């Protein structure tokens, strides 16, 4: 069986989400990577070195620069003539593109898999992770997205895949207008080892920065937020952790002034150690926290930052 894997990349580098997806794909068959973009020669070279990769297919054209699904999906469908599965990380690109590919192939996609149980059998979370379903696909070709936190990362070195060029075209349905991508010196949420997240209790964008940022700096942590904090404008949308935000599983997750709604837990309950700081001793977050501290975060967090 041969598997085509979507490579998530940015600024000329392969992103970590790709590496866990390669691990999932390698449990299904031979791994071929797809690098789509404009001027992505160096990405293709880096991708070819990932351990276990047999081949890298490159779609290098202005039409693919912004991963517009209208352009990318038909090109992938053409490649699926000689692949048995298309596997993408459950990133915003993966979630945008894979279902379009699946429908064009008349295949029911398996979203956000947690494990590969067999060539056609997978587990996946449903109901915000409150249940785990084992599903078996009857489709001859598989289209799958992968939850990155559920698979180890493949090594960036050790492979020697052959690089092959492919072509595609602009479908003329959509165009890229612009992006506001947050630039941060901090580790990216989905690959951070430590995350400090703030909730509604932070009460303003200024206080969010004044309280959360110094602690995150001390710990070398990524910064996350609850939906309530994002909706209120205390933190940007790409900070949101949860069922409908980012799924994270760091070594340590520090929840500050977050109540622990099921939609938030869905995004972080697989963290190795959860630390909660909340003034309400009955807050649901304490039911999943390994270490809890009851009290006023505006006192506790600055004191903690000072003592580290």
């Amino acid at each position, binding site marked *: 069986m041969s598997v085509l894997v979507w490579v998530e990349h940015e600024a000329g580098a392969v992103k970590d989400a790709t590496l866990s997806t390669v691990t999932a794909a390698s449990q299904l068959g031979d791994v071929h990577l797809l690098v789509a973009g404009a001027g992505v020669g160096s990405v293709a070279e880096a991708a070819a070195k990932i351990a276990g990769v047999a081949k890298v297919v490159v779609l290098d054209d202005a039409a693919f620069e912004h991963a517009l699904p209208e352009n990318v999906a038909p090109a992938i469908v053409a490649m699926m003539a000689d692949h048995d599965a298309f596997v993408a990380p459950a990133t915003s690109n993966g979630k945008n593109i894979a279902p379009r*590919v699946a429908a064009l192939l008349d*295949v029911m996609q*398996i*979203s956000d898999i947690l494990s590969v149980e067999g060539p056609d059998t997978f587990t996946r979370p449903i109901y915000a992770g*409150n249940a785990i379903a084992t599903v078996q696909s009857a489709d001859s070709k598989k289209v799958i997205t992968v939850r990155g936190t559920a698979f180890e990362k493949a090594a960036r070195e050790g492979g020697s895949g052959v690089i092959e060029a492919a072509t595609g075209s602009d479908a003329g349905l959509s165009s890229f207008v612009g992006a506001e991508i947050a630039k941060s010196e901090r580790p990216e949420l989905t690959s951070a080892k430590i995350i400090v997240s703030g909730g509604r209790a932070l009460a303003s964008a200024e206080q969010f920065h004044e309280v959360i940022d110094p602690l995150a700096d001390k710990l070398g942590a990524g910064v996350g937020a609850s939906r309530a904090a994002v909706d209120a404008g205390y933190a940007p949308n790409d900070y949101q952790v949860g069922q409908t935000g980012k799924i994270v599983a760091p070594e340590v997750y520090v929840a500050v002034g977050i109540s622990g709604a099921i939609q938030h837990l869905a995004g972080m*309950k697989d963290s190795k150690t959860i630390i909660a700081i909340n003034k309400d001793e009955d807050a649901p977050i304490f039911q999943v*926290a390994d*270490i809890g501290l009851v009290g006023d975060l505006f006192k506790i967090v600055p004191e903690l930052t000072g003592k580290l």
Partner: protein
Amino acid sequence: MKVLVPVKRVIDYNVKPRVKMDGTGVDLANVKMSMNPFDEIAVEEAIRLREKGAATEIVAVSVGPQKAQETLRTALAMGADRAILVMTDDEVEPLAVAKILKAIADEEAPGLVILGKQAIDDDSNQTGQMLAALLGWGQGTFASKVEVTGDAVAVTREVDGGLETVSLKLPAIVTTDLRLNEPRYASLPNIMKAKSKPLLQKTPADYGVETTPRLKTLKVVEPAKRSAGIKVAGVDELVAKLKALGVAA
């Protein structure tokens, strides 16, 4: 321009889902059901487009059991003009829902179809993208802003690193993210009025769509439980714990 809004009846987001003892699924007997929250946002967006003069008619569609009528009545009470219920007691997967919606879109010729980005029961996040593929239209997924100008729509999307804007030729597909708008509550007079708005009943067979699932659910289990840990008395103890974890020097 007509706007089509697919709405799904799902477990209410405030209810904690319980896995059935026999491992066949989640127990929905006597559980509060509501409109999928993202679909409320979709209905709201359609109404705002009509208020701005960009849309003329809003058609809500649901694929599901007879009770999904209630979900459609909610959409009508919010402000949709008419509704279509595609009745089936089977569980219908996103691919089949997309095929039914494609048949409806072929008949109704909407300028926009606005869906939720994900249903909070199956968490698939597929139907809108699939519908876009089947119709051959552009897709603006995870929208936090939608602007219709002439024969195009600009969609600002919530992506991993921040925000991105794409421009799509109409007709097009939009899927909603949480921050697109805040859905209105239906007023009592509007709830009363909604009772007399047209609601058409159909079946998947009327659209020639076969709904046999492609994915067989072998079992459904509860996730590994986390148990509550310890509470520390103060910051010094927390610092000690962080040191023990190797997180702090």
